[in-house]
């Protein structure tokens, strides 16, 4: 595990990443509209799950309320677009929305971090859940936020591409940016510090790791990236209400995707998102009423059978074989 911090990224790894990227860029020109919509979701929610992992993937600070930032971003962009009126073109509005959402979420997360990051474990998780619920209720209750009736966002049109292709490429950009940031954080001192916080926070602080600063940084970065995902999602839907963005299942899906794929890994959230979206929307496409039953069953199964996710399962296989022979004592 410790080797991961200073191991060089090899030429083969660069090559593999480049190949995957090229395939992903070419995908919108060969795939059907339905397939592309699925890929869109994998990229967006995988990317947001990766943003969640900046804090939750390394430490025990598992936010159960990242929909708070997702929704805050979406609402910021929506209200801004409405305030700007029809005189300004869609792409400009999108860019302004992204900038403002990032700014507002930066401020909100920085202020919230102070009290919230003092809580640990389940208390942190539930405080975030409450934060998401408060923001959702506020957006619904106060008329100026229009949460219950929602608002329409202008369609973004790029010549030569249809809307699904356009947003696919935007989500791809978002995912790639998140991957770059995640890899950078993971390989830096911050990532090592956060991993130490995850193993034993008090000991880490005692050894001189600036735990508070690293947690704050990861929390704020995670919030800002999540809000950017929210803005893009809002524009891709073109119409949002409180119930489309401040959804408890968005918060939980982020955790689920990370868990299924492998916590704290780069590819994990995307693998998890791909598997879960494939199962719930393709395999169970005609059985929407079983959606939650299957999601719940997979969640339970993963936690019990493979707590380190698919990636962890691959790494753990030799250990499992050894345990099967009964030579390992139970701890």
């Amino acid at each position, binding site marked *: 595990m410790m080797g991961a911090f200073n191991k060089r990224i090899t030429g083969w790894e660069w090559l593999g990443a480049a190949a995957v990227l090229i395939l992903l860029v070419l995908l919108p020109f060969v795939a059907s509209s339905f397939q592309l919509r699925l890929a869109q979701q994998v990229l967006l929610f995988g990317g947001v799950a990766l943003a969640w992992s900046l804090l939750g993937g390394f430490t*025990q600070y598992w936010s159960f309320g990242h929909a708070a930032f997702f929704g805050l971003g979406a609402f910021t962009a929506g209200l801004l677009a409405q305030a700007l009126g029809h005189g300004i073109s869609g792409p400009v509005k999108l860019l302004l929305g992204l900038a403002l959402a990032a700014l507002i979420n930066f401020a909100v997360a920085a202020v919230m971090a102070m009290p919230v990051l003092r809580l640990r*474990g389940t*208390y942190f998780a539930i405080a975030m859940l409450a934060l998401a619920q408060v923001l959702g209720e506020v957006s619904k*209750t106060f008329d100026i936020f229009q949460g219950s009736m929602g608002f329409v966002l202008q369609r973004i049109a790029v010549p030569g591409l249809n809307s699904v292709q356009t947003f696919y490429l935007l989500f791809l950009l978002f995912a790639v940016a998140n991957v770059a940031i995640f890899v950078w954080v993971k390989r830096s001192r911050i990532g090592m510090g956060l991993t130490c916080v995850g193993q034993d926070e008090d000991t880490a602080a005692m050894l001189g790791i600036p735990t508070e600063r690293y947690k704050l940084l990861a929390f704020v970065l995670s919030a800002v990236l999540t809000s950017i995902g929210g803005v893009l999602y809002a524009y891709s839907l073109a119409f949002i209400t409180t119930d489309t963005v401040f959804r408890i299942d968005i918060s939980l899906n982020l955790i689920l995707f990370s868990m299924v794929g492998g916590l704290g890994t780069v590819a994990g959230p995307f693998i998890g998102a791909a598997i879960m979206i494939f199962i719930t929307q393709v395999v169970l496409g005609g059985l929407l*009423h079983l959606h939650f039953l299957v999601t719940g*069953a997979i969640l*339970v199964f993963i936690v019990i059978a493979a707590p380190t996710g698919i990636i962890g399962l691959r790494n753990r296989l030799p250990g499992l074989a050894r345990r099967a022979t009964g030579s390992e004592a139970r701890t």
Partner: protein
Amino acid sequence: MNGVILAQTLVDGLILGGIFALSAAGFSLIFGVLGIINLAHGIFVLIGAYIGLAIGRETGIDPLAALPITVIVLYVGGYLLQRTLVAAAVRRGSLMSSLLITFGISLMLRDLILLAFGPNVQTLSSSWLLPTLHWGSVLIDGARATGLIASLVLLGLLSFLLYRTKLGRAMRATAQEDFAAGLCGIDVDNVYASTFGLSAAFAGASGIIIGLINPFVPSDDNYWTLNAFVVVVLGGVGSPMGALLGGLLLGAISTFSSQYVGSLYPNVFIFGTLFLMLILRPNGLLGSAYKGSV
């Protein structure tokens, strides 16, 4: 006139609070003894209400008479659930995995309720309700008063169980120090499962009472889970008294904010209170900081 509104709001708040307290007592118990947050708690509450509904439909038994059956069914269900899934999660790893497990269970159970009963709004009605009372110009709704009395009786029963029986003593010992309790010959695994079963049973009982007062739908479970959490955070973990205090406070917050601020605002106030309490005093008003917020 203002005095009457104030008195009425207070009475409504306290009655609602008593019922909130019962719905949260089981949640508090699991939190205190097992140290885990049971995100499936709200669904246990709903299952109680739906079992009452199903028994009423099939046999015509009054929901309040069906309460013991509900309690037994949920006790057994909760016991088995803990023995199989939840215990495995707790043994597997962090307490966070128990959050995920219980959330997964709640998703599955909610879907099962949807399949069995459909998404429609349901209500329970009982012929054993007290008549509506007029006390001066303050009105005391009969259904709510019945619910309050049933809640207080059940909370008393829980207190008796915890402080006067052998199982209760074993549970309190396990809550304090599970390892030492095991050394003293207590079957800790069994205590854990019994606690879970008991918690589910009390949640189910509160579900029937809630069903008598409010209409319910399968997607209400998040509301009841969060409500239970607010009650526990307000009152403190593990004791029926804490749950009662937290419940009464939550009831008062809920009715006062809808009376004096606006009927849409109670949720904002409830979750706002939860958030503030977590930050200012995460162990609850009656709780001690001994175990810490870890």
